[in-house]
């Protein structure tokens, strides 16, 4: 306990010092990330040499918006042993992921900072700034938030009537949709759509049957961008004739799933993508696209 609180005091001191800009680049804390979402925030904010390792999920392009950049860092499997071998100044991870590793590392005296999944746009801003503070890169974090807000302010759908809120349904593999309160729900609403997945009041990830999809009369059905290289029944459902017969606009790939799997500055691009889609719908033909 003594050691842990000692580390906390030291960390608070470090944060104060960083705020005053008294730290040279060479003394920036090194970081080891165990979670896909903290991986991406760290990669965007950290200075060269600060990142010791990121999780292996970060190189998967279907999950990570920064898969290409992620390949340049050593990957970890989220094990406490890897952290101990690495001796970073700071460990960042998700609040719900690898709890055993988190507890073990804390008991070993490591500073572990956990991030909850981002569910709102404000949450994303807060997490960018928090990561900036942790890494002593507050200015970079502020620039990222400014860029995020600038992207959100873009309005390719400016030509649409203000009251135009088309009904959109995300239909993922095996009938998974995005329920109320999820990050995709936030993005869909921010782009001016009604998220039909939030209607049944399920919350979180929800399952819907094909029949419910048709009965909800969506204006837009959003399918995943691309089929993986290998076939699975999960993708076969997307070519079901009932989807085509529903009269809804079937869209593939308007949003890269990696943009809203984790919250980050890139999530604003998902909002812009959906706004662009909205501008292309009948009922919204005008300038601004």
């Amino acid at each position, binding site marked *: 306990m003594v050691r842990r609180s000692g580390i906390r005091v030291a960390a608070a001191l470090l944060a104060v010092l960083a705020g005053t800009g008294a730290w040279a680049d060479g003394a920036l804390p090194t970081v080891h990330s165990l979670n896909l979402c903290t991986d991406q925030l760290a990669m965007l904010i950290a200075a060269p040499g600060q990142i010791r390792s990121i999780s292996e999920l970060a190189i998967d392009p279907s999950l990570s918006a920064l898969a290409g950049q992620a390949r340049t860092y050593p990957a970890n499997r989220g094990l406490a042993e890897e952290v101990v071998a690495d001796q970073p100044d700071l460990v960042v991870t998700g609040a719900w992921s690898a709890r055993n590793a988190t507890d073990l590392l804390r008991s070993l005296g490591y500073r572990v900072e956990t991030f909850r999944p981002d569910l709102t746009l404000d949450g994303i801003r807060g997490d960018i700034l928090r990561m900036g503070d942790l890494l002593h890169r507050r200015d970079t974090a502020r620039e990222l938030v400014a860029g995020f807000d600038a992207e959100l302010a873009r309005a390719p759908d400016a030509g649409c009537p203000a009251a135009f809120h088309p009904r959109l349904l995300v239909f993922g593999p095996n009938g998974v949709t995005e329920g109320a309160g999820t990050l995709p729900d936030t993005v869909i609403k921010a782009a001016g759509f009604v998220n039909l997945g939030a209607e049944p009041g399920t919350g979180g990830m929800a399952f819907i049957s094909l029949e419910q999809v048709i009965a909800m009369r969506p204006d837009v059905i959003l399918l995943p961008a691309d089929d*993986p290289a290998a*076939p699975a029944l999960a993708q076969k*459902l997307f070519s079901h004739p009932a989807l085509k*017969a529903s009269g809804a606009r079937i869209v593939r790939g308007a949003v890269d799933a990696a943009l809203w799997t984790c919250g980050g500055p890139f999530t604003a691009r998902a909002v812009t993508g959906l706004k662009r889609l909205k501008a292309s719908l009948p009922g919204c033909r005008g300038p601004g696209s």
Partner: protein
Amino acid sequence: MTRLAALMAALAALLFLASLAVGASDIPVLHGLAALVTGSDPLAATIMRDIRLPRALLGLGIGFSLGLGGAALQGFLRNPLAEPGLVGVSGAAALGAVAVFYTGLSAFGGFTVQLGALAGAAGAVVFLIGLAGRRSSPMTLVLAGVALTSLTGALTALALNLSPNPFASYEIIFWLLGSLKDRALGDAALALPLMAAGWALLFACASALDALTLGDDTARSLGVNLPRTATMLVAGVALSAGAGVAVAGTIGFVGLVVPHLLRPFTDERPSSLLLASGFGGAALLLAADIAVRLLTTGRELNVGVLTALIGAPFFLWLVMSNRRVMA
């Protein structure tokens, strides 16, 4: 058609209509049926024609195949525990379908997945007749079937785990405990002709199955060509069971339960059981498939789970009473 078969046919027809009436969305029954025929309300017509009709058709066809296949196998092998699911035929068909679908061979379209399932099913029937033989005890057959089911189940799981598609491994449950959810009319159009061909072959075996109850020698003297009958039976079971597995996964126990329930009401001749058992199987599967839709909302229970829940205790009871007879 015997009275029993007519009764079962009426029951299956009733449940077919009930299957069309049940779904996640609230469409008034008569309005839905009207939309199915006339296409009046486009939304209801889409739901009825593209989602519920294929499901009901496949329930009818697959149930009929399982009931008929069970009755024919039990008659031919003179073995009360014979059933496509239990003896590994369905499992082998699933493995065949998986091998074709997940490797991408199905991109060649049409009947390729069906052919994989048929090959698997036919291989399993040949293997069982070769290994367990027609004169073996029920236990030998069941043990051979258990071995085959475990092996094909393990290979199916292995194939799906090796697939680079992240969703493939979740689909193990579908292939081992099948489902009729969200099939398309195209699936039914692929499966039903193959099943019908299998049914024709099995019905053509009817009189030979009757003769075989008197023993092989008597049957031969009555003009039964044993190798020919065996070939027709293998092809018939493979076609009817395999075609169903290719679109709906493995649905177990229907072929075991139904012939046993109906046999006491027949004159004990296999031929008199075939048609009644087919319709009975259709009725049972349609009823189970209606039940899974009514019991669970959201993430629907696989119908194979329900038939196993009904069938496994029945199977246990059958094994117990069989042991008493043999002891």
